[in-house]
């Protein structure tokens, strides 16, 4: 018994010594031999454990960087929100530059400062004054058209009345000169939208919805040809001698931030051709878009027709009625149950029958009666 215990202890010590010697040998290995041993172990039976460790460390890195990523995402979201307004502002500034290049001379660019509360867009402060050549009653325009008129001038700034002001008036007409009137702000409805109305249009002159209305040049304040708005519809007023039309304004007062102030000498020379060319460019772009839409629509229709033809041929091959066949056609080819015989009533009240839907109108959409069916009104 004692010998067995002693023997076991000796074996334990031998194994311990062997393991320690092996470990010391591994510790004493030169780098050139140490690395291949470690690499071989990592690539063979330790590969799953190494993979687990890598994934855990990646998970830890993800957890640590989650806050930073969220902050980055928030910054990107904020930047994208700002980008929308910046794009709109850039677009408007490009248009303003285009207007300046078309006007060429006689204008003063200015910033419009909205100093009042929301929905109180009747006046603005302009960042140009008499030193820049601005005078009272100088027209204020934007790339889209008429904005307002200067009513007070300081050396470095001026005050302008927008077209939304209750006292604002401008003589306007259709581009062909067939209808004239006075454009002024329309009292807003329940929606609160800014609209214009063209009053005093002669009764014989009619304007179609969508017609463009421009300044007429009468009165000497506004040159001829500045877009005022687009006809929406005629509105009924108590004035029986003239028509009044509702206009969608060319310029939204809430979007007025950069404007052009026309000098008096430029007003005297007129602005002919400035908005016509812009309108032509817009119309050309619109035509391109419409033609693209038409091409896409026709291609889609052709594809749908081809698909329908294939489905019909498959259906015929299977002995089933084609999908495109109307209910009326199907009614002819299938046996029809006898229709209930209508009761003939005496034509006592023809006036009432005249106001109801004609019978042939309803019959046109329904299934035609089969050849052996009794005629309507017949009794069996």
């Amino acid at each position, binding site marked *: 018994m004692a010998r067995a215990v002693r023997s*076991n202890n000796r074996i*334990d010590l031998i*194994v311990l010594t062997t*393991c320690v010697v092996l470990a010391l040998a591994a*510790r004493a290995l030169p780098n050139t031999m*140490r690395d291949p041993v470690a690499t071989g*172990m990592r690539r063979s039976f330790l590969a799953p454990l190494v993979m687990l460790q890598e994934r855990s460390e990646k998970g830890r890195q993800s957890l640590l960087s989650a806050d930073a990523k969220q902050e980055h995402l928030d910054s990107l979201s904020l930047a994208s929100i700002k980008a929308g307004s910046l794009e709109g502002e850039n677009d408007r500034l490009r248009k303003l530059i285009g207007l300046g290049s078309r006007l060429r001379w006689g204008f003063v660019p200015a910033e419009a400062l909205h100093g009042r509360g929301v929905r109180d867009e009747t006046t603005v402060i302009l960042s140009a004054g008499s030193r820049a050549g601005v005078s009272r009653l100088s027209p204020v325009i934007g790339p889209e058209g008429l904005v307002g008129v200067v009513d007070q001038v300081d050396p470095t700034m001026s005050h302008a009345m927008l077209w939304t002001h209750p006292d604002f008036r401008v003589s306007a007409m259709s581009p062909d000169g067939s209808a004239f009137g006075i454009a002024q702000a329309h009292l807003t409805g329940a929606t609160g939208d800014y609209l214009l109305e063209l009053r005093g249009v002669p009764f014989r002159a009619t304007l179609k919805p969508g017609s463009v209305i421009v300044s007429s040049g009468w009165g000497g304040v506004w040159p001829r040809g500045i877009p005022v708005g687009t006809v929406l519809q005629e509105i009924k007023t108590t004035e029986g001698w003239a028509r009044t039309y509702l206009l969608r304004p060319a310029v939204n007062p809430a979007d007025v931030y950069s404007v052009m102030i026309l000098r008096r000498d430029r007003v005297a020379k007129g602005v002919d051709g400035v908005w016509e060319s812009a309108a032509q460019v817009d119309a050309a772009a619109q035509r391109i878009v419409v033609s693209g839409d038409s091409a896409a629509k026709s291609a889609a229709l052709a594809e749908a027709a081809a698909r329908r033809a294939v489905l019909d041929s498959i259906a015929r091959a299977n002995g089933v009625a084609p999908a495109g066949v109307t209910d009326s056609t199907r009614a002819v080819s299938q046996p029809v149950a006898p229709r209930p015989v209508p009761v003939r009533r005496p034509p006592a009240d023809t006036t009432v029958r005249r106001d109801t839907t004609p019978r042939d109108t309803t019959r046109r959409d329904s299934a035609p009666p089969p050849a052996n069916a009794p005629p309507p009104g017949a009794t069996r």
Partner: protein
Amino acid sequence: MNLGGAIRATISFLIFVVLHYTLRPLLGWRAPMDFLVLALLLASVRVRPATAAVIGFILGMISDSLAPDALGAGAIAMTIVGFGASYLKAVFFADNLVLNAFFFFLGKWVFDILYFIGEQRVHGVELVQQLLLWSPLSAAVTAAVGVLLLFIMRPLLEPSTA
């Protein structure tokens, strides 16, 4: 130890090894717990000292293979810790959590002392700081986690009554 006990002990051992390579890097503490030492200590008290030495040597080589510069240091430390734990199992082979916690603490601390001395990477004040501050902290964390796992895995680790 019967076959069922051996299987349960092996499963426990593998769980500790997997935890060492998943939970430990995920937490990334400055004073990390050492599941390999826990696995070694729990295995050592169930086997002969020679077997414990071999298990320690293998676990040490596994640990060292991920840090080739210290190849062999972990193997030496774990061999000695495993052999010592198995040799002293009569002292600690009690169902006492405090004794087990002290056992884990001591095993991990001895392992760190042997490892850092054998590794020869840190010297001087840094080595003293490591052995007297971070290693005991790591050993304490290891002991706490070991006791917690012993409590959780009691059905697996207790010898079968059947």
